[in-house]
Every structure is written in structure tokens, then in C-alpha cells.
């Protein structure tokens, strides 16, 4: 039981993620966690004005069910499959974040400095969450996939477009973390 309750090592987690991809391919579908965003636009009625959202979203219900499952999985894990262990971060990371104003790094999955009610109700905090969401939603559709679609599925099937996209993910991520985050915090 300890093995389950403690955080799982990378060499267990990585293959299990590819098992998710394999299962979905086995069921005749694909592994992509961002296409549901397009589906939701379509459900709300965006297809009436924009052709990109004009498709039979009912064929995508299975993907929304995967999303629902992912939410439930998150709930189950926090409530029943976790102990109080902290994220085993590099001490240098913790110090660095502390200097930027992030306290108790690794005690939670996301920093309270960005996701607590106080942060959410402050103009800066709200703006950052909205901006982040916009960038992810816009970027993922522009690039035609996200981490699951490009980094896992695309690279596993040795596709060049996915390699380019993943290089893009990293260029963007490196710039944000190394140059922009220190300006924001």
C-alpha cells in the first residue's frame, strides 16, 4: 500500500501514461486532451458562426467522458490514494521560488500564490489565470495538439510535425519560466 500512497517514480509513471494512449488506440480512438475544448465550443453553438466548430460533436462524446473520468481520477487520488508526502523538489528550486515569493513549495500541487481564493480574487491573479488559459487554448489548437497529442502520441508514432510542436512547447516554456515568470513575481 505504501507504494501506492507515495508519489510514483518516473519510470513507473511514464509507461503507465503510454498505456493510456495504447488503450485509447485499442478502443479505436486517439489520445488527445485538448480536442475536447473544441468540442465544447461546438456544443455551446460556435458552429453557427464559425465553420471550424461545425462538426458532429456527438461523435466526440467519448472524449468528454475521458475528461469526466480524469476529473474523477483526480478526486479519487487526492482523497483515497495519497498520504501527506511533499513533492520531492530540488532544494535549489525551493529556494529560488521562495525568493520569488512562493512559500511552502511542493506542499500542494499548485501554488496558493496563484490558485487560492485570495489570488483568484486579486486583479493580477485573475488576469494570470485567464491569460494562461487563453494561451493554452489558443496555442494547442493552432499547433494541432497538446502534450498528449503531440509529445506522447505524435512522438511515439515518430511524426515530424509533433517533434516541431514539442520543440515549440519547450521554447515557449523555457522563455516563460526563465525570463517572464521572474518579471511577474
Amino acid at each position, binding site marked *: 500500500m505504501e507504494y501506492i500512497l507515495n508519489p510514483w517514480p518516473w519510470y513507473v*509513471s511514464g509507461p*503507465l501514461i503510454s498505456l493510456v494512449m495504447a488503450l485509447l488506440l485499442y478502443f479505436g480512438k486517439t489520445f488527445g486532451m485538448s480536442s475536447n475544448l473544441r468540442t465544447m465550443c461546438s456544443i455551446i453553438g460556435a458552429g453557427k458562426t464559425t465553420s471550424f466548430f461545425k462538426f458532429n460533436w456527438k461523435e466526440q462524446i467519448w472524449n468528454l467522458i475521458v475528461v469526466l*473520468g480524469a476529473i474523477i481520477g483526480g*478526486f479519487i487520488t487526492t482523497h483515497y490514494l495519497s498520504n501527506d508526502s511533499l513533492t520531492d523538489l530540488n532544494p535549489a528550486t525551493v529556494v529560488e521560488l521562495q525568493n520569488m515569493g512562493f512559500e511552502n513549495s511542493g506542499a500542494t500541487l499548485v501554488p496558493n500564490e496563484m490558485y487560492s481564493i485570495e489570488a483568484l480574487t486579486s486583479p493580477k491573479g485573475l488576469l494570470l489565470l485567464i491569460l494562461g488559459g487563453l494561451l493554452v*487554448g*489558443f*496555442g494547442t489548437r493552432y*499547433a494541432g495538439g497538446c502534450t498528449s497529442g503531440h509529445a506522447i502520441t505524435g512522438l511515439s508514432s515518430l511524426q515530424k510535425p509533433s517533434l516541431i510542436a514539442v520543440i515549440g512547447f519547450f521554447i515557449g516554456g523555457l522563455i516563460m519560466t526563465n525570463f517572464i515568470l521572474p518579471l511577474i513575481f
Partner: protein
Amino acid sequence: MKYLKFLLVGIFFGIVLVKSEAVSWYRIYEMFRFQSFHMYGIIGTAIASGILFLQISKRGIVKSIKGADIFVPKKEKGITRYIIGGIIFGFGWALIGACPGPMYILLGTGVYSMIVVIIAAILGTYIYGVLKDKLPH
């Protein structure tokens, strides 16, 4: 009932991503600072085992549930959309510390502010859909 298997896969995915800490904002930060091997190990072993699975299935050893060949759709050719879209995605990923899968999973763990991020992501997708024909691909 035909959706039950997808619900179970989703639940499994959610569990794996929380237990692996891949949904941790701090892990993403650490990765982009090259201060930990953890995320590289996860992504690397995921791709390695994915390649192995697809190479095996390519030889017809594994078939889909309906008996057809395992099929991975090909991404359209191109460079511009992948590099620019990728960079924009990377900005958002590193800022909020979550890509689309983890957004939902974190909501399940009780990070309710994630609803704001998800709505913004839907809006971002909508903006792309509107601007699509004007953007270089």
C-alpha cells in the same frame, strides 16, 4: 454502457497523472529550469514505451477491439503552425503549470480556480477557430 471503458481510462489517467506529480505546477517549473530529471524521465519513458507499443502493433501483433489495425492519424505537414502554436502553448503551460489534461485533473483534486483557466482555454480555442483562416499555417 459503451462509454464505461472511456470513463475508466479517464479515471486511470487522472490517477496516474496525480501520482506521478505531472500535474504539479512545481514540477513543470523545475523541468523548465532543468533542475530535476523527474518530468524528463516521465515523458521519455512514456515515449519509449509508446514507440515500442506502436512498433509491435505495426507488425499486426496487437489489433484494435474491433479487430482492425491500430491506427494513429497523421498530423498535417507544415512547420509554421507547429512552431508558433507550440510556443504560444508553451507560454501558457509554463505560466499556469498545467496543460489541458492536468487542468481537468487538478479541478478534480479540488483546485476550483482551475474552472477559470478551463473557461479561458475554451475561449482561446474559440478565438483560434475565428482567426484560423487569417493565421499562417
